């Protein structure tokens, strides 16, 4: 029997996930800058204050390190805080609390402590917000053992992964693409709907090339796949959905079928998610590959403000198509 579905936006998925988990578990609470009275700068948490009150939905000072630290302390002592960091760029200010404290508490204490902290933050360029409000820094925390990282590309994935994160006893970070808050999609109409971490999703089936894509790049990859189809190239789009843990099995099985892979992620290309995934594919699927694994990321430049420059830096479907063509035709990309 299939579950009924509703169409909601990516932003509504955030609100529904938080609200449902707060109704379900009174230890869940939510705090961040401008999240309560204003409903967040992206307006995705409007209404939570009205339903749950100011004890459980808290506006904080602009103190990323302080509120993250408070989240860690609350999580160590029986609560399930959700901390919003308005822009992913600002997470750099709270790094000690995530990297040195939250991520290591369970391990360092020999398993005594658990830290059920959920961090929500944003990634993505495209709004002319310039270099300090546009970065996609998901590789930073994916690098840290002890943290789980989700990077959802659809309303359904966001809702299911955020609910799982809130229920998880470990520090989890959800990277939401700020350009997708208005994106609509079907979501199962079920308060207990969750998606486990570590399970990739094949967003489009294909047989000639595997496009491993994250977050907004899933949609870029789907557009590229449509363009490639017209050229007779069948592209499969695999969305890892979580970077840590990472479901390599699904990616390898896809590459086994297609023999070619391109990885696309919106972060700076160097030392990032594309590098890790391409390396893992080259290492674990070497025998299946008919061509080198290629990757497409953002240019290694600070994200520029000018509408004339910014789009140049972000991977798009045209670049992805050219890259795929290069795997078949030795085309310069």
């Amino acid at each position, binding site marked *: 029997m299939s579950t009924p579905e509703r169409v909601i936006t990516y932003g509504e998925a955030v609100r529904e996930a938080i609200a449902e988990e707060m109704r379900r578990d009174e*230890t869940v*609470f939510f705090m961040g800058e401008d999240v309560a009275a204003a409903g967040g700068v992206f307006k995705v948490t409007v209404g939570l204050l009205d339903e749950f009150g100011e*004890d*459980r939905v808290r506006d*904080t*000072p602009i*103190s990323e*390190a*302080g*509120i*993250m*630290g*408070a*989240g*860690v*302390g*609350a*999580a*160590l*002592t*029986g*609560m399930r*805080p959700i901390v919003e960091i308005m822009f992913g760029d600002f997470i750099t200010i709270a790094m*000690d*609390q995530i990297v*040195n*404290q939250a991520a290591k*508490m*369970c*391990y*360092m*204490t*020999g*398993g*005594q*402590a*658990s*830290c*059920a902290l959920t961090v929500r933050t944003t990634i993505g360029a495209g709004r002319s917000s310039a270099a300090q409000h546009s970065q996609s820094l998901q590789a930073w925390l994916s690098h840290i*053992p*002890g943290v*789980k990282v989700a990077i959802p590309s659809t309303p359904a994935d966001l809702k299911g992964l955020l609910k799982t994160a809130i229920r998880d*006893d*470990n520090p989890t970070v959800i990277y939401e693409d700020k350009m997708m808050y208005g994106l609509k999609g079907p979501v199962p109409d079920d308060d207990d709907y969750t998606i486990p971490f570590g399970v990739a999703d094949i967003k489009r089936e294909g047989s000639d090339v595997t496009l491993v894509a994250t977050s907004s790049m899933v949609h870029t990859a789907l557009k590229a796949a449509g363009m490639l189809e017209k050229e007779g190239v069948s592209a499969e789009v695999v969305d890892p959905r979580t970077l840590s843990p990472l479901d390599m099995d699904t990616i390898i099985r896809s590459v086994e079928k297609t023999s070619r892979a391109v990885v696309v992620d919106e972060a700076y290309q160097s030392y990032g998610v594309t590098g890790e995934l391409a390396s893992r594919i080259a290492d674990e699927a070497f025998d299946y590959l008919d061509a080198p694994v290629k990757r497409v990321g953002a240019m290694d430049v600070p994200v520029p403000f000018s509408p004339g420059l910014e789009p140049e830096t972000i991977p798009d479907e045209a670049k992805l198509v050219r890259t795929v063509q290069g795997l078949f035709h030795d085309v310069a990309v």
Partner: protein
Amino acid sequence: MSESLEMITTSSDEGTLPLPEPLCREIYDKMLTIRRFEEAVLDIYTQGLMRGLAHLYIGQEASAVGICSALNDDDYLTSTHRGHGHLIAKGGKVDRMMAEMMGKVDGYNRGKGGTMHIADMSLGILGANGIVGGGMGMATGAALSGKMRGSGQVAVCFFGDGAINQGAFLESANLASIWSLPVLFVCENNHYGEYTAASDVTAVREHVAERAAGFDMPAVVVDGNDAVAVHQTAVEMVQRARTGEGPCLIENKTYRYRGHHVGDGDPEKTYRTQEETDTWLAKDPIPRFARRMLKAGMMDEAELESIDTTITKRVEDAVAFANESPYPEAGEVTDHVYA
């Protein structure tokens, strides 16, 4: 300026001992246990039985014990790299602590944390910390948690004079104050942040506790080598926090008799003077407290000696326990990355 912002400087009358005898005995026992424990750590470190870094608490015992003797078992505590004293004061077991010093499987953290990360969640000890100021947010969050759950628990955040200059202090103190959280920020001012005099790097007139005024919270500057004064201050501030009146800043003025960590040379030959150290040695919190117990007739010299013998034996047993405990099995290296 409101009354609550007045800074109080406090010490107790050395001629009196205005605390109940069982409490005095507990305070003395804990302080001496810390001293003997730290001497044993120095010993095992020097023998090569302990690796890493050993930051000794010797000289500061009245601070940890004075504060923790005012807490309930389920109150929270965050500690620092110089944390052994806080743990013992809150009820930590010396054998499991010593095993952790040596990285053994019977250590509090199964050998995975070591000296700078010992925790006992069952005692509300959320951990020592290797990051200066790293526990400030955590203590604030624990206090928030206690308040939200209506549990009446308070959190104590121990930190040194070095951490008062971390941004984490400003952010945590502000948050604790706007939300009236039950947290005691306890600055143990031992006058040196590693090898640099606090007075050289801290913009205050006289006391670091002056900074509390900027957060609308009361401050108390305490003779941190006077266990009675520290305890009495803590009782008052814990009561205040428990009844919803919010955070405070306590500055315990004290001194570490050893260097920043074992093996880093002789402080008196580099960044501080023998004269200064001698002044503080004359204020050693343990003999000071012992003299008061003797004067109050709570103990005699023979009993002081017998207590020392008992504690020394307990610490020796802890060292033996740690020595006999094995290292963790290699397979444990991947355990506990995730809960």
